[in-house]
C-alpha cells in the first residue's frame, strides 16, 4: 500500500483527534515501519488495518464509518494534487469510469508497485451507474467514500447502494443520481 494512503490517514486522524491520539494509536499498534510514513514509500496493508482497529478501540468509532470518512478526505487530497484528472470530465460517471482505464493506470506508471483495485462499470443511463469493486484489500467503504465525494464534487445528489460478495473480494455499487 502506497505511503500516501498512510500519511493522509494519519493527517485526517490528527485533524480530527489531535496528535495525542495519533501518537497513542501508533504506540499501541505493532507496526514494522514504526509509524514513520512517507508518501513515496510502500508499506504493508496490514499496518492500515491495525491502525484502524486500534483507533476504533480507542475512540470507540465504527471502522466502516471511519473508512468512509477517509474516502471523502482522500478525494480532497487527490483533487488538490491532480486537478487535471477531474477537469477532463464534466459528468461524475465519466470521471468514475475513467478511474480504471485512465487514473489508476497513470498511478501504476508512476508506482509500479501500487496495489490498485479493479473497477468494472456499467452505465444504464446518465442517472444510473453500476460499479463493481474488486480488491483483495477489502476497502469497499473507502471506495464508497470516494464515490460519494465524486458526486458531491460534480454537484450531483443521489444514492450509493451496495451488495458485497466477500467470497469474490468484490462489492457492487449501484449509483443513482436524482433527476
Amino acid at each position, binding site marked *: 500500500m502506497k*505511503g500516501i494512503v498512510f500519511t493522509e490517514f494519519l493527517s485526517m486522524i490528527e485533524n480530527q483527534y489531535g*496528535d*495525542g491520539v*495519533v*501518537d497513542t494509536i*501508533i*504506540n499501541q499498534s505493532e507496526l514494522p515501519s*514504526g*509509524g*514513520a*510514513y*512517507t*508518501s*513515496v*514509500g510502500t508499506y504493508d496493508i496490514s499496518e492500515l488495518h491495525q491502525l484502524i482497529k486500534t483507533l476504533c478501540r480507542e475512540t470507540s468509532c465504527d471502522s466502516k464509518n471511519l473508512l468512509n470518512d477517509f474516502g471523502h478526505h482522500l478525494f480532497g487530497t487527490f483533487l488538490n494534487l491532480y486537478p487535471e484528472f477531474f477537469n477532463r470530465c464534466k459528468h461524475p460517471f465519466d470521471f468514475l469510469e475513467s478511474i480504471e482505464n485512465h487514473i489508476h493506470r497513470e498511478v501504476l506508471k508512476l508506482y509500479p508497485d501500487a496495489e490498485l483495485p479493479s473497477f468494472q462499470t456499467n452505465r444504464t443511463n446518465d442517472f444510473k451507474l453500476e460499479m463493481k469493486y474488486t480488491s483483495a484489500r477489502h476497502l469497499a467503504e473507502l471506495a464508497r467514500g470516494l464515490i460519494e465525494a465524486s458526486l458531491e464534487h460534480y454537484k450531483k445528489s443521489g444514492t450509493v447502494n451496495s451488495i458485497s460478495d466477500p467470497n469474490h473480494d468484490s462489492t457492487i455499487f449501484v449509483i443513482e443520481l436524482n433527476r
Partner: protein
Amino acid sequence: MIPNNSSEQREIEILKRKVERERKARQQAEDFLEKRSLELFEANNQLKQFNEKLEEEIRTRNTQLVESELRYRTLVETAQDIIFNISTDGYFEFVNQVAKELFGYDESEIIGQHFTEFIDPDHVERVLGFYIHFRDKNEQASYLEFPIITRQGEHRWIGQKVRRVEMGNRVYFSAYARDITQQIESEKALINVKEELRKSEMKYRSMIENMELGIMEVDNHGIILNAYDRFCEMSGYSRQELVGQNAEELLLVPEFKAVMDLQHQQRSKGIADTYEIKLKRKDGEEIWVLISGAPFYNESGEVAGTAGIHYDITERKNLERDLQEARLKAEKAQMAEHEFLANMSHEIRTPLNSIIGMTHILKESPLNDEQHDLVKIITHSSRLLHSLINDILDVSKLEAGSVIIRNEDFNLLEILENIQNTFSVKAREKNIEVSLDINGQLDELVNGDPLLINQILMNLVGNAEKFTDQGKICIETEILPSESDDQIQVRFAIHDSGIGISQEQLPHIFDKFHQAAMSSTKRHGGTGLGLTITQKLLQLLGSEVSVTSEEEKGSTFSFTISFGKTGKLIRTKEKTGNEWELHASVRSKRALVAEDNKLNQKYLDMLLAKVGINYDLAENGAEAIQMAAQNSYDIILMDIQMPGVDGFEATARIREITRYNDVPIIALSAMTMSSHISQLEEAGLDDLLPKPFTPRDLYTILNYYLGYGSVEPEPEFTESEFHFSKELDRQLLIDSYDNDIEYAADIFSTFLSNTPDELKRVQEFIKQNKTAEIRTIIHRIKPTFQMVGLPAISVMCSDAEKLADEKNEDFMLKVNEITDAFESTRSLIISELERMQNYIKQLA
C-alpha cells in the same frame, strides 16, 4: 518556568516521537529517491549503449554493402574490357576473349602480329608516334583513343589504357581497352547538330538584321561579346570598337540605369522581356531603342549572357511626345474653361441671389399695378438666369468629370412619390394630371445614388411639364427581370401628351443649348441644357435615355438603371382601405408624448384618442423628464427638436432611471439623414417615426413595440361623405383624418392661424440674413403642410433644410418658393375650411 507538569511532559514526548517519525520517513523518502535516480541513471546508460550498438551495426552493414558492390563492379568490368599484352616493340603477346570477339580474329591470328596492323591506316602514324614516345620516355601509364578495323572491315573506336609492366628483367605493356564507338558517334552527331544550329542562328540573325533590328550579345558581366552590322550602324561604332567594352558604360544614357538593373535581374532568372531605353551614339546623339532581351545558354545549360535585339524607335517616341504635349495643352485649356465657368457661375449667383431675394421683399411692399408687373418681370428673368447658371455649372462639372457617384440605401418609391407630388402642384395650374404607375414590387430599399436619380427624374418630368399644355404626364416604372440576384433592374418611362418633337429635331435634342422648336426657349423658358445634363448623368450611371415622339401627340423618354438589392424592407404603409389594425393589448398601455408643436399635439391627440390609448403630454424636454420620473409609462414618443432640453438629452436622462431601461422611446423627427439616425441610436432612442407621419405609420410603430396579442381589426369606417378638394392630396387627408371632419377642420384652422405668422417671421429673418433661425422655423412648419394635404410643400421644406445644411446660397430662394407656394394655396385652404364647417353644421 520549568515544565514539570506531567501533561506538558507528555506533550513533549509526543512531539519528540513525532519528530523522530518524520526524520525516519524523510530518510526513507531520500533512500527511495536515490534508488530511483540510480535506476534512472542505469536505464539511461543502457539506452546509450544500445544506441551505440545500433549505430555500429549500421556502420558495418554499410561497409559490407560498399565492398560487395565493388566486388561486383570489378567483375562486370573485367568481363567487358579488352585485355592484351604487347612487347616493347609492338607485337601482341596475349589477348583475352573480349579482344578476340571485337577484332573478329582467332588468337593465333593476333598473337605475333604488330599492333599497327589492326589500326585504321589514317591513324597509324599518330598512334605509333604516341606509343614510341611513351616507351622511350619510360612513362608508366597512358590513355589514347583511336579506331581499329575488324576482320569484317568495320571501324571501331577504342579507348585504351596502357601500363608498363616489369617482371624481373622482362618489360612489356599491358593494355585495357574499351569499345567507345558509340560515344564517339554520338559526339560526332552532336557536333553536327551544333553546326546546324549555328547555321540556322546565322540565318535568323541575318534575317533580323535585314529587318533593321540590331543584335548585340553581352556576357554575364555586361561585356560585349559580339555586335552585328545593323547594331554597329545604329550605334555608330564599329564591331571592333564595341567588342570587349562594357555595354552599359559605353552606350547607356545614365537615367536608364534603373531600367537596366531590373532587366539584369530578370535575365539572371532566365526571363526574357521587352523594354525601351535611350542609347548614346558614338556621335553623341541619343536614340530611343526598343530592346527584346533574352538569355542564351552555354553547352552545360547555364546562362552565358544576353542577346539583345534593338529596334530604333526614336521617331515614334518623338511623335508620341508631341502628341502628349498637344493633348496636355488641350486638357489644360478645357480645365481652364471649366474652372472659369465654375467661378463665373458662382460670382454671378451671389448677386443674383440678392436680386431675387430683394425682388421678393419688394413684391410684398405696397406697389401700384405697373410697378407690380415690372417686379414680376424681374422675378421671372432672374429665376431664369438662375436656373441657366445652375445648369451650366452642372454641365461643366459633368464635363470635368468631377461628379461623384454615391452608393447608399434609399427609398426609390419615396423619390418617385415626391416627384409626383411636386409636379402635381405645378401642373394643376395648367390642369394637367401627373400620375405614377408602378409595375412590380418596389418594397425594399435599393442601393444607388438617390441624388442623381432624383435629378434625372426631375429634369425629365420637368421637361415634360414644360412642353405639355394639356392632357397628362405619366411617370411609369417597371421592374425588369434581372440577370443577377443582387441587382434590381428598373425601367423608367416618362410619357407626356405635349407638343412632341419632329423627326428632324429628334437627333439633336441632347445637344447643348438646343431646344426642339428653336423659338421654344422663349415660349417655354429653360436653358436648353436640361436634356444634355440628363443624358450625361445617365451615362455616368452606365445607362442611356431613349426617346420616341410624335409631333402634337407627345413624347416618351425612357431609360433603365440597375440598383443593388438590399433586402431591407420599406416599413409597410400600404393603403388597405381605412381600417386600422391595432393589437388589443396596445390599448391598455400608457404613453408619454413630448411635443412642443401645437399642431402636432392636436394630431397626436386625435390619433391616440381614437384607439383609446391613455397618454400624458409634456410640452418640452424638461417636463418630459419630470413626468417620466413621477409616473410609469409603457412607451414614450419624443419630439427631437424642442426648445431647451431637446429630445436627445431628455431621452438620455430618462434612460438613467432604471425602470426605463427597456421602455421603448420613439423619436418623432423630420430629420431622416443617416447621420441623424446614428445620433438617435447613440442617445438611446429605439426607433424613428419620421415626420410627417400618417396614422398607419404611428399604429405600425405602436403595434410593433407594444402589441403582443392577436390582431383585432377595428370596424371598417365608411368613406367620408365630405369630399376634400381634388387640388389637395385627398388620399393623404382621408388617411390622416379618417372621416373625422371636425378634427380636420380644427387642424386646418390652426394651420391657417399659425403658418402666416411663422412665415412673417421668416421674412424678418431673411432681411437680417439669419439662416439658422429660418431653418428652425421651416423645420417646424414642414409637417403641417402635409396635414392640410399639401405634401409638395413639405417636400420643398425638406429641400430647403438640405440646402441650409450644405450652406448652399440657394437656400433663401427655396424659402421664398415655400412662401409663394403657401400664398398661392392659402385661399384654397380657407375655402376648404369653410366647406368643412358647413358640412359639420349640416350634420348637427
